[in-house]
C-alpha cells in the first residue's frame, strides 16, 4: 500500500476517495481505541466509541485544518465520544483488569519486571476508579505521551485547566492507591 501523509489522505477523502480514510483508521486506530478504553473501562464500549469517533471524523473532515496535526484532532473526537458514552452509561462501567503480556523490554530481570507489572496493574486499577475526565487527561498525558498543549487540544479545554485536572487526577490517584494498600493490609 502506498504510504501517504495524514494530510494527503484527508485530501483524497475530501475528493471523494473513501478508501483513503482506511490509511488513517489503520494509523490511529490503536491509539484511539486505547484512549477510549481508558475512559470507558470497557472493551466493547471502547470499540464502539473508537468506531463512532472515526465515523464522526470522516463526516467532519471538511472542518479539519490541514496545517494542524491529525492526531490531536481525532483524539479530541474520540475523547468527546467516550466521555459522552460514560455520561450516558456510567452505571455499566466495569474496571479493566486484564492486560496482555507487557511489550516492554525486560532489562531488569524477571523479579523486578513482575514487581513493576504488579505496580502497573495496581495503578491502572486505581485509575479506573477515577472520574472519566481525570482518566482521559491521565491517559492522554502519560499513556499517549502527549504534551500539555496537545492534551488541551484533545480535550478542548484551556492549558491551565489541563494542568489543574492532571494535578488533581494525580492527587486522586495517589489517594486511591493509598486506600487500596490500606485495604489490602487490613
Amino acid at each position: 500500500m502506498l504510504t501517504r501523509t495524514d494530510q494527503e489522505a484527508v485530501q483524497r477523502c475530501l475528493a471523494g476517495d473513501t478508501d483513503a480514510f482506511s490509511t488513517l483508521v489503520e494509523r490511529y486506530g490503536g491509539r484511539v481505541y486505547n484512549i477510549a478504553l481508558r475512559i470507558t473501562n470497557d472493551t466493547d464500549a471502547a470499540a464502539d466509541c473508537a468506531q463512532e469517533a472515526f465515523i464522526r471524523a470522516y463526516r467532519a473532515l471538511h472542518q479539519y485544518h490541514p496545517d494542524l496535526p491529525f492526531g490531536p484532532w481525532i483524539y479530541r473526537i474520540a475523547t468527546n465520544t467516550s466521555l459522552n458514552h460514560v455520561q450516558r452509561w456510567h452505571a455499566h462501567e466495569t474496571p479493566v483488569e486484564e492486560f496482555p503480556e507487557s511489550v516492554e523490554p525486560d532489562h531488569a530481570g524477571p523479579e523486578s519486571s513482575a514487581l513493576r507489572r504488579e505496580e502497573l496493574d495496581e495503578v491502572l486499577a486505581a485509575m479506573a476508579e477515577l472520574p472519566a475526565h481525570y482518566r482521559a487527561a491521565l491517559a492522554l498525558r502519560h499513556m499517549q505521551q502527549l504534551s500539555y498543549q496537545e492534551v488541551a487540544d484533545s480535550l478542548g479545554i484551556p492549558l491551565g485547566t489541563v494542568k489543574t485536572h492532571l494535578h488533581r487526577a494525580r492527587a486522586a490517584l495517589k489517594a486511591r492507591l493509598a486506600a487500596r494498600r490500606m485495604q489490602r493490609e487490613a
Partner: protein
Amino acid sequence: MNEEDLDRLLSVAPPQALPFGFRDRVMGRLQERQVAWEWIIAALFAIPSLVFLVRQVLVHGEDFVQAMANVVTAASSQTSDAFFFVDGLTVLALALLGIACAFAAHALLVDASGTGRRVA
C-alpha cells in the same frame, strides 16, 4: 508517587490490541452510510412517481390501451401515423423514476464492491 514516576510507569503500559477487523468495520459503516443516503434519494424520487403512474393507469388506463393499440396497428400496417397522447406529468414521472433507478443502481454497485472488499 510523583509525576515522573507515574509517567515512567504509565508510558510503558502495554496498549490493548485493536479488535480484529476494526478497520473493515469502520470502512463498512462509511460505505453503508453512503448507500443509505442514495437509497433515500432513490425512494424520494421513485415513490411519488410510481404512485402517480399507478394512478394514471387506474384513471386513464383505457387511453393507454388505446394508445398502445394505435402504435401496434400503425407498426403492423406500415403506416407512419400512430395517434397517442402522453401528458407532461407522466413524462416527468417517468424521468424521475429513471433518476431513482440510476441512484439505486449506484447504491447496489457500491454495496456489492464494498462487500467484496470486506470479504477479500
